[in-house]
């Protein structure tokens, strides 16, 4: 789960990482007020969970409160890469001498967190990795031994940081590590961490991505989910324990199991159409979940046919059939439904659906071919 810059910075600050003075505003007048409090130049930063805000005109420098009012007003009216700007962060401007990249993320193949630093801060780290990989210093952190101070010295030496900054850099690294560890982050990043004209280190930006599997440990963060990143349907699905991603095609899918769901989508493409969604009802789904799932699929006007592929292991095909029948009571679908049931109680499930005017299929290939054919007709 992504969280906004201003929240990431607050978390960093609570772990001892220096951030600029600043506040969040939802209206131009509020932004002006903040600029008055801060005095001097301010940076107005759109709070949207995408990269490339600057290039899109979503980050601007303002020299006084009136200019802040105008610029904030513009930015709050923007959409950046399809996302509405609902808030701006108004930070006091910094005198930037050097920009550093500092981040911690999971290295899944090593099964360890890795702390990454680079003197090429301010750029996309993937870009640096492509062009000048030698500028990136990486140190794996043993999750049981945690980050040691000597690791921070290795990083500082690796990026050529002048010794006068080593102590504060070390504290920032430790703060970043603890923030990452304590919040169950999959990424905690400061880009750029700057050396100011006043010879201090300052975190000008903050980015944290939280592990979805750990949100139950952090209910105060879970409620901060930015719903603009999902469609309404995706939000409803998530709240019902369904895994749903909207896509652009015209064949709606309902499958039990993520790998099988992806394979089903791939099969649809193989036979010449595009999936309208990814939907995994999970293992052991009950009838109400299946009803909700079918409703969500049918709410997409692009859908010209629905493909239901259930390979019942723990999931029972008769339970799935029950859920489908209940959905059909509530919504008369205007599109054909192709259904393929295999596994636990498949016979019972098929019998229950015998009068439901569905197109049946034995194999996944047949089901996909039939769905593509009826969607075209």
């Amino acid at each position, binding site marked *: 789960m992504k969280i906004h810059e201003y929240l990431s910075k607050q978390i960093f600050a609570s772990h001892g990482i220096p951030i600029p003075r600043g506040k969040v505003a939802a209206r131009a007048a509020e932004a002006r007020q903040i600029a008055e409090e801060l005095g001097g130049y301010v940076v107005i930063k759109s709070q949207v969970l995408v990269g490339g805000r600057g290039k899109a005109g979503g980050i601007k420098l303002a020299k006084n409160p009136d200019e802040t009012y105008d610029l904030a007003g513009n930015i709050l009216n923007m959409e950046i890469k399809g996302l509405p700007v609902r808030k701006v962060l108004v930070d006091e401007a910094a005198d930037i001498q050097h920009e550093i990249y500092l981040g911690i993320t999971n290295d899944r193949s090593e099964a360890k967190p890795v702390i990454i630093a680079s003197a090429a801060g301010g750029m996309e780290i993937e870009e640096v990795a492509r062009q000048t990989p030698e500028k990136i210093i990486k140190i794996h952190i043993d999750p049981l031994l945690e980050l040691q101070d000597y690791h921070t010295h290795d990083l500082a030496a690796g990026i050529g940081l002048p010794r006068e900054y080593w102590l504060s850099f070390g504290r920032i690294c430790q703060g970043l590590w603890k923030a990452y560890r304590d919040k169950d982050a999959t990424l905690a990043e400061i880009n750029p961490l700057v050396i100011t004209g006043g010879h201090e280190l300052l975190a000008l930006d903050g980015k944290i991505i939280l592990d979805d599997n750990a949100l139950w440990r952090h209910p105060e963060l879970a409620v901060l989910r930015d719903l603009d990143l999902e469609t309404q349907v995706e939000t409803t699905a998530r709240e019902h324990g369904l895994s749903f991603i909207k896509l652009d095609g015209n064949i709606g899918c309902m499958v039990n199991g993520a790998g099988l*769901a992806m394979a089903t989508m791939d099969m649809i493409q193989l036979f010449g159409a*595009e999936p309208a969604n990814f939907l995994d009802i999970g293992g052991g789904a009950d009838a109400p979940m299946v009803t909700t799932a079918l409703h969500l699929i049918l709410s997409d006007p692009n859908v010209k046919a629905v493909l239901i592929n259930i390979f019942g292991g723990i999931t029972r095909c008769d339970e799935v059939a029950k859920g489908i029948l209940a959905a059909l009571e509530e919504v008369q679908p205007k599109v054909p439904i192709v259904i393929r049931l295999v596994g636990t109680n498949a016979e019972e499930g098929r019998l229950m659906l015998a009068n439901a005017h569905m197109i049946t299929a034995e194999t996944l290939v047949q089901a996909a071919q039939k769905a593509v054919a009826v969607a075209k007709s």
Partner: protein
Amino acid sequence: MSILINKDTRLLVQGITGSEGLFHAKQMHAYGTKIVGGVTPGKGGGLVLDDIPVFDTIKQAKKATGANASVIFVPARFAAEAILEAADAAIPLIVCITEGIPVQDMMRVRNYIDHKNVRLIGPNCPGLLTPGECKVGIIPGNIAIPGNVGVISRSGTLTYEVLYALKLAGMGSSTCVGIGGDPVNGTNFIDVLKLFEADPQTEKIVLIGEIGGSDEERAAEFIKHNITKPVVCFIAGRTAPTGKRMGHAGAIIEGGSGTALDKIKALQAAGCTVVRHPEEIPEAL
């Protein structure tokens, strides 16, 4: 011969008194797996399923039963610790079915068990099946028959699809190993490929992958230099968009890497046959 599990496996079920644990213990028991005990802290002393003793701790269970494997059906918030307890008691094979374990928990677990002589399979996996002999986990027993094809997969129901397709074609499996869909897990493709290469019963290998991470790419490199048996692959997720988690915590294309196409190319370059969908697998073998 099979790998990892067989008729001599003596299994503990962690979480046996929970609804998941009890349901699947029943299924495994009916299949013929030797379940020698269950472990639920605080519920020790009784019996479940007529004759399976329940213990409070793994150490007590192992001492009383001589168990050499454990399967974990414990909720995500407690599952990492269940793995640690089994590893601490030196249970040689630990199979964790649980989905949803926080990734930092799993990194801590890995850095502990990597120093122990145990094998962890999973988490977030359907477990293992040696048809006709033993089932550890939730793979339905009636979709596979004994044979000479070793199956390794990151998926659950997609694995069942493949086993079933093999069965319908009259082909059987030596052992099926579900390594699971999490980004940090106990056993990867290479670990299982090594075991299949060394197993006399396994003559061919099927590898089922999906988007996310680079386990398939590393497997491809390993296959090039170390595997002589034919490998047929299916990789799910050609149509998956970037940046979105497709169900499994580990199934996500990040920063342009971990795409299905990259994995397919790597495996083909290593001499593997990569099919377009699961029903093409029997013919390709």
